[in-house]
């Protein structure tokens, strides 16, 4: 049931990130805004995981998310300042925030291994959705070449997080049986 709900949520993220392609092409400042929103969401939820989880593997993963996404956020901020493309909000960014708030509320109500499983499966769905959005929408629509290549360089780290989260999910399932 929980798995299903996070799959639904993943779909919601995909939907949020996917609708902009249909609605309108995001501008570079909006792309920056979407990327930074996604970074902050992941950092916030990792902080929540550090507070709530007692599983050392989950904490290690959360620490890594904070470290990597903080660095990513900083590099995007630096680039945006350099390019004069200060981040701008968009419907997509707003939807992302809203969905993240719902997920945080849900995570706040969970404890122990239930929390760990929900957090990790949400991380999988979230990273998958961001990778898809970057590949299909953000990268093709980025007008500035430096922004485009920065997004391309960020893709492998998201892929790495996804794979790490998947390994973590398997090990959590293994330990619960």
């Amino acid at each position, binding site marked *: 049931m929980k798995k299903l709900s996070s799959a639904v949520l993943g779909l919601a993220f995909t939907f949020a990130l996917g609708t902009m392609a249909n609605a309108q092409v995001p501008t570079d400042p909006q792309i920056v805004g979407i990327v930074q929103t996604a970074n902050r969401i992941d950092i916030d939820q990792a902080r929540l995981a550090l507070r709530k989880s007692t599983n050392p593997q989950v904490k290690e993963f959360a620490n*890594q998310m904070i*470290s*990597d996404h903080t*660095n*990513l956020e*900083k*590099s995007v901020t630096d680039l945006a300042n350099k390019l004069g493309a200060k981040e701008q909000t968009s419907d997509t960014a707003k939807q992302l925030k809203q969905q993240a708030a719902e997920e945080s509320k849900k995570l706040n109500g969970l404890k122990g291994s239930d929390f760990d499983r929900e957090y990790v499966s949400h991380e999988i769905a979230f990273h998958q959705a961001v990778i898809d959005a970057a590949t299909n929408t953000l990268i093709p629509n980025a007008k500035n070449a430096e922004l485009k290549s920065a997004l391309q*360089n960020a893709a*492998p*780290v998201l*892929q*790495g*997080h996804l*794979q*790490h989260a998947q*390994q973590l999910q398997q090990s959590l399932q293994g330990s619960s049986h």
Partner: protein
Amino acid sequence: MLQANRSTTAVSPAALLRFGLRVAAAGVIALTCCFSAHAATGPSHQIVIIKQMHFEPATLNVKAGDTVEWKNEDIFTHTATASDGSFDSGPIAPGSSWQTTISKAGTIAYHCGPHPNMTAQLVVAQTGESGQHEHEGAPGKEEEESLRWSPPRRPEEFHPILVNFTAALLPLAVLSDLLGRLLRRQALHTVGLWMMVYEAAITPLTVFAGWWWKSTEANQLPAKLIMVHQWLGTAAALLFIVLAVWRWRFHRRAIPPTWTYLTFGFVALLALVYQGSLGGAMVFGK
């Protein structure tokens, strides 16, 4: 003033020359020790750059006994973790590096712990082979190669060399003055004086090389060990300067150093031995 001092210490130019020659000879011996120690630390040093979520090169050919260094030039923290468990760097922060000596021949696959999609491998040839399978076991060859000397460039080369001087001069300074008092020999006091002055002059360099080394290793060092080692070393450098000034004042008053001075020298010596054991633990004690 200076003139007066010279006459009171009663050291002939010939004695000074002989002493100088002995110091030079000791220096040569010490340097030879350093260089052979340096040569024995590793036949060659290879580097893997971590950049944009990749290990470069993805396949590195090394010989058993080579040192491999991973330099993190990415914006993320990474690890170099061998799949067979033979090495694990722990977190390598952006801008820092980690190194290990590869002892086992064969192919070692490794990856980044936090980013499992980052994979690479080391192809480790037996010592005596050169990358590809040539000759098995030519024992003399490796030793010959390792004796080649190249000037030190990096802090991990400077610090161990300088440490030899710091470690040798203090016991000689204290011992010379001790023997000078027991045997009532002025020449030994002269040795004690100059050894302490050299000790005070060279140890700040040793400490500087130590801090420099630490700055390149960042957080891969045992936290408590390095914390004590860095501050004890810095304090020791200051203490040696105080001792040298103190020793110089005895010289100016043309009297042998007091037992209080010698006691302080001995305590400094004990601290230095402890300091050396901490340094050794970090380099050899894995």
